[in-house]
């Protein structure tokens, strides 16, 4: 077989980008297939009057609402949480809030410490050098010395400002004697490589118009083009091809016209996220599925149930401005205390509340009717005078929470996916307890009104766990370096392989782990058996 490339990556999100960069640096020929297209930043309209109108369509977080190039139907009718993602170059870093959190040491040892979930096959300190490396790739801004984490080198850039909102939150946490630390974000606070200093448009989750947020279309893919990397957009991978010995020989993808193409490769790396990766594995071998002798493909889906607590104040806090992003985070109650009635914990972060429609045309700003006499009063009360505490709960793995193929294909005939997901009793108890604590913080901050939203069904940003890594082929899909137990030259580098979810934002760990896996593959590439 004459391979078109040494390694073929499926998916141009953060794991694919970090891996592609590492492979290219080692001299490997790389092709990446991405089902979406490049982000169109001409539609990032912040500063224009029609900003929110355009954002609600073109930067919609749910692919079922956005229905753009590369989006496929995700049936969430049997799920407590909707899956959010961006299908395009940059993946969900195009829409993420760029809150950059290393997982905690305890996250890698939940079974040892708390008797739940599974221990990872490596620990925090194994991943630590990779965190440090990718923090330079992602222009991370923050402040060293956070006592909620082991000692680490400072991020390359200083933290975002606290502004009025962050300072008020910090002072309240100090009065309560609770932990906080200035926010760590993948947001440039000074010009840095291809990025420019943040100008506080509070538009991070709607396609950063400034180019300050480290989305990998900007930090990785643009610089990689012409350096041994070929990126093909509007290429929807249908299946991985296996030879008679069970080795991956490449993939079949559909181009934008639905025409099938076969592309051969020495190694295939799936970086298609925790929905897209099992979708491809299930659909391979003409729908019979591959890499699933353990029966774990698609299972253990984790989504990070998200809640928030909104505070409304008398003072003008200019809270339509700022990075989103996080001004600060608190991990005061992150570690397990069984007296609270649940195990594991949650992270809190404080953000500005943003633009007017986001607080008027939504289901998360309380039950008070907005139309009629109340509209102008509510608009005046909320805009610039409100803050949001976000709460992310650790979501423990459950084999019954899963992704399956459905019989509703995309426009090219590739099956879509269905989610079967229920929020656990442990997570519900955790969320309610934490929202109560955050409510206390809002009281100390002086909020005149509070709106509490434990578990928001429409927000499932962090998709993990559906091709779990482990040492035992009977209970895991991939080995600790991402290599499929069943197909030795097929790898998975995305968050599908996370054994547990942590209770913090996963992109830092997605990037660090992808770098760890890619470096391992490069070191072993001479010994890999490829298709014949």
């Amino acid at each position, binding site marked *: 077989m004459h391979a078109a490339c040494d390694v073929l990556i499926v998916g141009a999100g953060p794991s694919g980008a970090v891996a592609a960069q590492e492979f290219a640096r080692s001299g490997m020929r790389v092709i990446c297939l991405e089902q979406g297209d490049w982000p169109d930043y001409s539609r990032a309209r912040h*500063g224009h*009057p*029609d*900003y*929110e*109108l*355009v954002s*609600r*369509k073109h930067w919609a977080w749910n692919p*079922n609402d956005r*229905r753009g190039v590369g*989006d496929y*139907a995700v*049936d*969430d*009718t049997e799920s407590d949480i909707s899956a959010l993602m961006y299908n395009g170059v940059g993946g969900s870093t195009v829409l993420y809030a760029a809150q950059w959190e290393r997982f*905690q*040491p*305890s996250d890698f*040892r939940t079974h040892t*410490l708390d008797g739940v979930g599974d221990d990872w096959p490596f*620990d925090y*300190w194994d991943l630590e050098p990779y965190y440090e490396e990718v923090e330079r790739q992602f222009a991370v801004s923050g402040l060293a*010395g956070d*006592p*909620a*984490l*082991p000692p680490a080198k400072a991020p390359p850039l*200083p*933290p*975002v*400002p606290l*502004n009025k909102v*962050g300072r008020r939150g910090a002072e309240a946490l*100090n009065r309560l004697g609770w*932990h906080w630390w*200035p926010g760590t974000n993948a947001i440039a*606070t*000074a010009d840095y490589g291809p990025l420019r*200093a943040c*100008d*506080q*448009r509070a538009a991070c989750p709607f396609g950063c118009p400034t180019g300050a947020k480290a989305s990998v279309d900007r930090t990785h893919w643009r610089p990689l083009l012409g350096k041994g990397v070929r990126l093909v957009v509007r290429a929807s991978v249908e299946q991985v091809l296996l030879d008679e010995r069970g080795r991956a020989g490449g993939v079949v993808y559909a181009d934008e016209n639905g025409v099938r193409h076969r592309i051969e490769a020495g190694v295939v790396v799936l970086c298609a996220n925790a929905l897209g990766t099992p979708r491809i594995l299930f659909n391979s071998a003409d729908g019979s599925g591959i890499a699933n002798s353990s029966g774990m493909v698609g299972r253990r889906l984790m989504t990070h149930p998200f809640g928030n607590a909104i505070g409304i104040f008398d003072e003008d806090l200019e809270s339509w*401005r700022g990075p989103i992003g996080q001004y600060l985070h608190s991990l*005061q109650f992150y*570690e397990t205390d069984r007296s609270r009635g649940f195990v594991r914990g949650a992270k809190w972060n404080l953000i500005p509340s943003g633009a*007017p*429609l986001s607080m*008027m*045309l939504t289901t998360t700003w309380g039950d008070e009717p907005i*139309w*009629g006499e109340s509209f*102008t*009063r509510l*608009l*005046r009360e909320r805009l*610039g005078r409100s803050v949001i505490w976000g709460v992310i709960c650790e979501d423990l793995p459950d084999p019954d929470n899963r992704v399956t193929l459905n019989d509703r294909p*995309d*426009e090219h005939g590739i099956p*879509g996916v269905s989610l079967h997901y229920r929020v656990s009793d442990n997570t519900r108890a955790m969320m309610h307890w934490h929202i109560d604590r955050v409510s206390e913080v809002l009281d100390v901050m002086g909020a005149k009104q509070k709106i509490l939203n434990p578990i928001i069904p429409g927000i499932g940003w962090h998709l993990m766990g559906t091709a779990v890594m482990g040492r035992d082929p009977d209970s895991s899909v991939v080995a600790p370096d991402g290599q499929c137990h069943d197909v030795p030259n097929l790898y998975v580098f995305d968050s599908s392989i996370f054994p547990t979810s942590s209770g913090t934002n996963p992109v830092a760990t997605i990037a660090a782990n992808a770098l760890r896996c890619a470096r391992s593959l490069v070191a072993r590439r001479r010994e890999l058996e490829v298709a014949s």
Partner: protein
Amino acid sequence: MTGQDPIRIEARAEVEITADARDRLARVADLLIPAGAGLPSARAAGVHKGLLDQVARARPDLVPPLLDALAALGDAPGLALVEGLATTAPDAYAALTLVVAGGYVMSPQVTEPLRYTPNETEIVDPRDTLNAVAEGLLDQVRARGPIYRVPPDAPPGHGS
């Protein structure tokens, strides 16, 4: 959600917005957003005039369901009838309310009294947080020491 196939071609506003439709929108808009709190009504802000044209240019896909909503409401709806569309015609209701509120907050007559000036950007000043730290805002957090849990198999030097 779903099960719908993705739309690959943007819907365009090929339907004319008549003077009658604009008059109807003005009446409905004032039901949804009457004047108050020092802010104008939606009609006074002009959501049925130039703002509607701006909305239609930004979101042509909203125009057909907007016209459906206006047709369904007739000449003299009350607020309750308008809000009832949320149940009987949710897509039309969503378009109508987004057109009215979206157009309303585009008006300088609204944004200026609110001191909402998103076109004025402000580059971050990294000294802001560092100055707060220098003032001692983090001292007590630091003084309390590490709060993370160290697993029993952590490498030597990390608490094990």
